């Protein structure tokens, strides 16, 4: 057995154990922490499976933002799960039947890593062969994401936009005005305060690097947006929501949520004006490759803007609620 296979098996076994612990534990704080661990281990597995861009996203999202949001929810609800009252037999039977049907289905699947599998011989070889000449950037994932399949990505950004609007609609009515909000900060912790101040600059700089270096290495608007937002969130966590709102008002963030989608859609319309198909960037520059470069840069920026703004405004909406659990209870 090769070392790669051993790493693969070990990481999957870790994931299985973590998932089982999540199922069994009833202390929700531990459950949320384990789900962050689960994300981090799966990010490691994704790197192992050559999906560096995906791993990047999973690490930023799973271990970062969604953990913060879940902790915010726990602070607003409760930290303990009640013991199940109903019989567990029926769910267990359903789950086992579904599992066996799925395992039976895998027996026909191409074996792991097979270069002749159907998934490997259609479409993807074209992207791999043509990216250099048609788009002119080394990262094929970015080329497919922003150019070849730009339409899909526009749809995804719209979904994120819609989900952000949904969160605001659900929670905005309950956001306390700054006067009424119980001021909760952690800035009496000296270590936290100093470390946060040292970290925020590099985090923002790294987000910009991830945003604008996406043509050449792993990264892009989705990852950069999350990382950018996490700098604001860590500031709000340590120095309080009120101070964060002073730096970046909620109204401005909500405006940016729409601006990102608008920028993405707008780039598509510009290519309309030049008589080409929607989101065909070739017309934006002097030649095909220059146009593609500019188009990808613009739409990735739109993606980053919307993702960052949705995450920050979601965090504002969650932490603006009045928590029933006090700081000292944690």
């Amino acid at each position, binding site marked *: *057995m090769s070392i790669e296979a051993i790493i*693969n098996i070990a990481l*999957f076994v870790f*994931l*299985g154990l973590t998932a089982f612990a*999540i*199922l069994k534990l009833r202390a*929700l704080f531990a*459950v949320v922490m384990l*789900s962050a661990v*689960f*994300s981090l281990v*799966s990010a490691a597995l994704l790197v192992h499976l*050559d*999906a*560096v861009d*995906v791993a990047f*996203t*999973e690490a930023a*999202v*799973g271990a970062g933002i*969604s953990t913060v949001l*879940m902790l915010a*929810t*726990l602070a*607003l*609800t409760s930290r303990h799960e009640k013991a*199940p*009252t109903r019989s567990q037999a029926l*769910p*267990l039977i359903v789950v086992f039947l579904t*599992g066996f049907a799925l395992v039976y289905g895998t027996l026909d*699947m191409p*074996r*792991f*890593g*097979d*270069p002749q599998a159907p*998934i*490997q011989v259609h479409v993807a070889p074209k*992207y*791999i062969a043509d*990216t250099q000449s048609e788009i002119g950037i080394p*990262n094929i*994932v970015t080329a*497919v994401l922003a150019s070849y*399949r730009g339409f*899909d990505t526009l749809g*995804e950004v719209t979904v994120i936009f819609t*989900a*952000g609007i949904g*969160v605001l609609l659900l929670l905005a009515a*309950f956001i306390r005005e700054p006067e009424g909000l119980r001021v909760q900060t952690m800035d009496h912790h000296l270590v936290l305060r100093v470390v946060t101040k040292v970290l925020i600059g590099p985090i923002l700089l790294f987000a910009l690097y991830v945003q604008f270096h996406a043509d050449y*290495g*792993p990264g*892009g608007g989705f990852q950069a947006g*999350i990382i950018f937002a996490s700098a604001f969130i860590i500031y709000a966590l340590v120095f309080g929501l009120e101070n964060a709102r002073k730096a970046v008002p909620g109204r401005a963030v909500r405006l940016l949520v729409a601006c990102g989608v608008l920028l993405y859609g707008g780039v598509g319309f510009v290519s309309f004006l030049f008589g080409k198909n929607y989101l065909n960037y070739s017309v934006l520059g002097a030649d095909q490759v220059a146009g593609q470069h500019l188009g990808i840069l613009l739409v990735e920026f739109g993606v980053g803007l919307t993702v960052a703004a*949705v995450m920050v405004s*979601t965090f504002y909406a*969650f932490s603006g609620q009045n928590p029933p659990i006090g700081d000292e209870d944690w």
Partner: protein
Amino acid sequence: MGVSDILGLFNYWMVIILMMIGFYTVVSRGNLVKKIVGLNIFQTSVFLLYISMGKISGGTAPILTGKPEVYSNPLPHVLILTAIVVGVATTALGLALVVRIKNAYDTIEEDEIQAADDETEFGDPQAAEDHRR
């Protein structure tokens, strides 16, 4: 079925195990936050399924190096990358609903929510039970 078959299908089987743990968490646990965590496990297992299918033995990450190399399939990477961020946006929406449910019912346990609904609609649990029959 030989060892190479078992190794060749191991990833898919582990994905199914993870998927079923997530599924079981969703259907058997009454706590709404726990359900969302279960949904996240389910979701991550789907991500791993796609990425496992795109992997080529001896391949490398799909970033052109200028040398002739075998690249793993970039297409699943694109699909899953966007799916992760959409996933966190929908998770946030789910958590927002949980917070609102807590405000309205003062609980996030499924059976207690059901009991409160029965209380308002039928007056007492027995009448609700009869109605369901």
